[in-house]
């Protein structure tokens, strides 16, 4: 029972890591190094913590907190962080490269310090006793898996159409993209806002799962960790940050048997990963290669069902 409990709990944290990886990935996929994800994650967490503990009507009559109320919190958190991202994005997205990164770190810090100093937002102590919509980690993991699948599907759709191509073009050469009639400012803003929405929704799930929320959960360290998810997993397809988030969240736990050495090993992985695979673990080329070898495997034993194989056509 203990082990199963632990496994589901770890799985849940991995899924949260994947969601945060996707949030960092989105601005990066159009070349914008934004580290704002933990800020919007914190807005989601704080919103959920406040609403679920201070608004009795949301609790309903049941001992388990209703899922519909969680959805409502998600909507409110998405609205708040979406509007903030819209306002802030218009300003900070004029900055490029490392300057944008610094501005977004400042945003994360402002939000953290504000929360820390506002008793109404939980202050230094935080907010405890956040009600539980599920009575075991397995329930959380199943729910989060559905959310992750939905968001992955949206990302895959995005990359297959006009806006996704515009984002890739901006990443490769912003000036050339503008000369093709792409409204680069609007496209970058869209990515920034959508990234904030994903982070806020993840924050809502986390607040319930952790059972408590405090300002430290959205700090600069989280900016770096979530960025590492994308560097490690790869920033050229949405699958990269998902894989990076899952693996790098699991790694410290899986390394527990080696004791304190695990921190060193973890650091080494983050250091060596980008050296061995500068584009990250998952790249479109590797996915294509994998797809081809899978097709090869499928055809080899039966002597071939040559229906759709060898067609390099539309993705």
């Amino acid at each position, binding site marked *: 029972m203990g082990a199963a409990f632990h496994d589901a709990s770890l799985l849940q944290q991995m899924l949260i890591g994947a969601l945060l990886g996707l949030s960092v990935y989105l601005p990066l996929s159009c070349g914008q190094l934004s580290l704002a994800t933990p800020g919007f994650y914190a807005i989601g967490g704080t919103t959920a913590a406040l609403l679920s503990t201070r608004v009795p009507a949301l609790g309903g009559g049941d001992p388990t907190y209703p899922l519909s109320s969680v959805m409502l919190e998600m909507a409110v958190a998405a609205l708040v962080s979406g509007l903030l991202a819209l306002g802030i994005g218009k300003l900070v997205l004029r900055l490029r490269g490392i300057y944008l990164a610094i501005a977004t770190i400042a945003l994360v810090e402002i939000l953290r310090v504000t929360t820390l100093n506002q008793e109404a937002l939980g202050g230094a102590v935080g907010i405890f006793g956040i009600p539980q919509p599920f009575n075991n980690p397995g329930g959380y993991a199943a729910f989060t898996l559905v959310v992750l699948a939905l968001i992955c599907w949206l990302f895959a759709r995005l990359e297959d159409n006009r806006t996704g191509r515009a984002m890739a073009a901006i990443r490769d050469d912003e000036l*050339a993209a503008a*000369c093709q009639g792409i409204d680069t400012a609007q496209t970058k803003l869209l990515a920034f806002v959508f990234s904030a929405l994903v982070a806020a929704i993840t924050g809502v799930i986390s607040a319930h799962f952790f059972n408590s929320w405090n300002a430290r959960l959205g700090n600069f360290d989280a900016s770096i960790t979530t960025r590492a998810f994308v560097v490690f997993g790869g920033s050229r397809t949405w699958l990269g940050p998902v894989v990076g988030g899952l693996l790098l969240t699991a790694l410290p736990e899986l390394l527990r048997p080696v004791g304190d050495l695990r921190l060193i090993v973890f650091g080494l992985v983050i250091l060596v990963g980008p050296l061995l695979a500068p584009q990250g673990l998952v790249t479109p080329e590797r996915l294509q290669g994998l797809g081809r070898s899978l097709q090869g495997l499928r055809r080899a034993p039966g002597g071939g069902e040559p229906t759709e194989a060898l067609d390099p056509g539309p993705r």
Partner: protein
Amino acid sequence: MTPPLLELENLGVRFGGLQALDAIELAVQPGEIFGLLGPNGAGKTTLFNLISGITPPSRGRVLWRGSEITNLDPSRINRLGIARTFQNLRLFHSLNCRDNVLVGLHRQARLPWAAALLGTAAGRRRQQTLRDQAQHLLELLEIGSLAHQPAAALSYGDRRRLEIARALASGPELLLLDEPAAGMNPSEKEALRLLIRRLQSQFKLTVLIIEHHVPLMLSLCDRLAVLNFGKRIALGTPEAVRQDPQVIEAYLGVGGVV
């Protein structure tokens, strides 16, 4: 006479102490192939940058069909019908050739949100039409077989062709070509000359072209302007420009043989 498509009025730009362009006056008529000649550093590419909205001018105005477009940003200017290629090639390297052209089709590729998101049958058909359009443009530029190659893997000449395909995809009336024949051998240059002529008549384009290869320019262009040290030193038909003493001086120096 029809009003000019593009007009430059007293256009000048200064980079610090360098007067890169000075009092440029130019009017490009619809349908013509207009050439810009000049030694290196004469300001030809800077002029393209001013027209396409990349560099703001210090002085003067750019008029498109009679209305001012001087300080519009590059994406607005492209949407008005001006597309360009780049001398130093600015392709989207991580995308394949077809996707590079699809980016050029950006403006036409708009789908209703629901269709784009859900991948409805109508949405998929639209995507397929766009892909076919992109493929068609690649084939016009004779690089159709490279559609699935990443842009970074192309040869130099093919990259130049891909840049033209991408620029055409945005549906321009005026095409700015910045040294499209650079790095090509004589037979490729001749093929390019024919190609530009063909595209010009097929798409009813007006073409403004920068190129160093004088014989190519003399045979391709309807009119030519010659720049030197940021000033327009000659303007006219290829024949007139070839015999202009100032042009001969800029290219060959004083006292040079003709």
